């Protein structure tokens, strides 16, 4: 019985969402009374994992894992799970980890549970709380199966520092043959992504046209935030589809979500519901979004946003 965390990295840096998964793993390991092991893939600087309570770090270095594919990464993790007799694997809820988790659960015949929001209430039977119905509900779910794979909802547990031995051990994996290859990756560089952002600044039709988006971008820049938009805005081509957040767009689970000129259709709220704090700026006091918001300003975005940008800049 051991707890293993897959600590996802990008460009040799352990992702923040992975540190949250490790923090969660540590709490669970303590509850079970076991040690906490982590596995990293092609990451030469995993030392930070020690600060979050990791006892042992399995270090996999392999050229065939240069590009992420759910098949090859599942295969690699499966080898660690087998060698270490792991019964619980913790994943973050990044796009790659969720992708990998389901495929891996199929390969290992394990039981996978996603959007988990707390450490298990009970170990026998193993019962965890997860969000469902686009955050309009939660369930207390009983998991059975020899291998349990748990993907935790972003920003639901937070980062908790802890001391661990942090011993690094190279883990050699057997050959991986993949029947799927990555032929191209196009990625914006230097921009905060919606999935990784602590703060997301989003705008809707209330901004009147794409030419006014510099306001959103400037506000996002002073806050170190990602930019997003409502569905009509992406449908009209004002902004790229990749910025569309909502039920059929990207999900947002940030600490702070600022919505400018978005009325708050139920499909939009379904996608951003799990953000912790919501600020709504809208000139229509009847906009349904105010009912879902923590803080609201009834006012003209074209007056409020420039002032807000100036004040935030002066604050720093």
């Amino acid at each position, binding site marked *: 019985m051991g707890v293993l965390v897959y600590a996802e990295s990008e460009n040799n840096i352990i992702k923040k969402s992975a540190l949250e998964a490790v923090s969660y793993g540590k709490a669970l390991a303590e509850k079970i009374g076991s040690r906490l092991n982590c596995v990293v893939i092609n990451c030469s600087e995993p030392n930070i994992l020690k600060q979050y309570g990791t006892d042992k770090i399995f270090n996999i270095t392999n050229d065939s894992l240069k590009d992420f594919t759910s098949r090859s990464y599942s295969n690699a993790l499966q080898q660690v799970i087998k060698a270490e007799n792991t019964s619980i694997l913790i994943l973050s809820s990044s796009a790659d980890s969720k992708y990998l988790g389901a495929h891996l659960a199929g390969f290992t015949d394990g039981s996978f549970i996603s959007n988990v929001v707390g450490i298990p209430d009970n170990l026998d039977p193993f019962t965890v709380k997860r969000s469902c119905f686009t955050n309009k509900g939660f369930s*207390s779910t009983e998991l059975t199966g020899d291998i349990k794979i748990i993907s935790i909802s972003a920003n639901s547990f937070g980062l908790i520092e802890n001391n661990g031995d942090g011993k690094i051990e190279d883990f050699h994996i057997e050959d991986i043959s993949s029947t799927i290859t990555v032929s191209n990756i196009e990625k914006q560089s230097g921009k905060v992504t919606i999935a990784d952002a602590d703060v997301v600044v989003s705008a809707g039709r209330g901004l009147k046209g794409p030419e006014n988006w510099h306001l959103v971008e400037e506000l996002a820049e002073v806050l170190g935030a990602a930019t997003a938009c409502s569905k009509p805005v992406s449908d009209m081509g004002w902004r790229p589809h990749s910025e569309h957040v909502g039920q059929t767009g990207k999900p947002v689970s940030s600490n702070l979500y600022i919505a400018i000129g978005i009325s708050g259709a139920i499909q939009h709220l379904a996608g951003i519901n799990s953000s912790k704090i919501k600020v709504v700026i809208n000139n229509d006091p009847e906009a349904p979004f105010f009912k879902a918001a923590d803080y609201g300003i009834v006012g003209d975005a074209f007056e409020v946003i420039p002032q807000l940008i100036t004040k935030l800049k002066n604050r720093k």
Partner: protein
Amino acid sequence: MNILVCISNVPDTTSKINFIDNDSKFDKNGVQFIINPNDEFGLTKAIWMKDSNNADVTVLTVGDSSADAILRKCLAIGADKAIRIDCEAIDASSVSKEIVEHCNEVKYDLVICGRESIDYNGGLVPGLIAGYLDYNFVTNCVSLNIENGKAKCSREISGGIEVTESDLPLVIGAQKGLVEESDLIIPNMRGIMMARQKPLEVLSAKNIKARAIDKKYFKPQEKAEVKLIKPDELDKLIDLLENEAKVI
């Protein structure tokens, strides 16, 4: 080419979410059920592939007879055949295994699922099917092109797009982008009439044991009333975000 589209019957987004039987069950009373939106993007793509790839499209759901209405709708949209595996859908693992049992009997070159359902939001079924069958798998799939038995797929990744190439059989998790919302097919009278002639086969379930059982549901805590800040008091907003909410 043989395509299977897995369909989930989900409550419409605007539905009230309530629980009954001591909070152990979702209250279906008065709820309108629809084709899971992510599945519908996949279905539309499959219908297009009838022309581009000479595909034969089967839709499948795991559920009781209340799901027949959406299967008929899928047939009216253009699917050739519908299958319902007759049992209560309890968890992703048992549902996936029921689908896998069927895929072992009828070979499909491509299995399309939505990236996740809008009710339980698990996002598990496509990956589990791929894993159980040892098929290739691409989720968050925003484009798909199959030529000469090779599939080229684009996947939405954090901050960009990744293109993969693979052999068939393949499982994809469909989402918006694979087709656009404006591409969705609204059944016309001819489609609805034709759907009545198309086969809807009911298969008995293998009664596979569920692994993840929702024992109890909760509603989120009631939200506190929004704090309104006057547009000329932005310092107050900054102070609240910094010191009360502690998010900046």
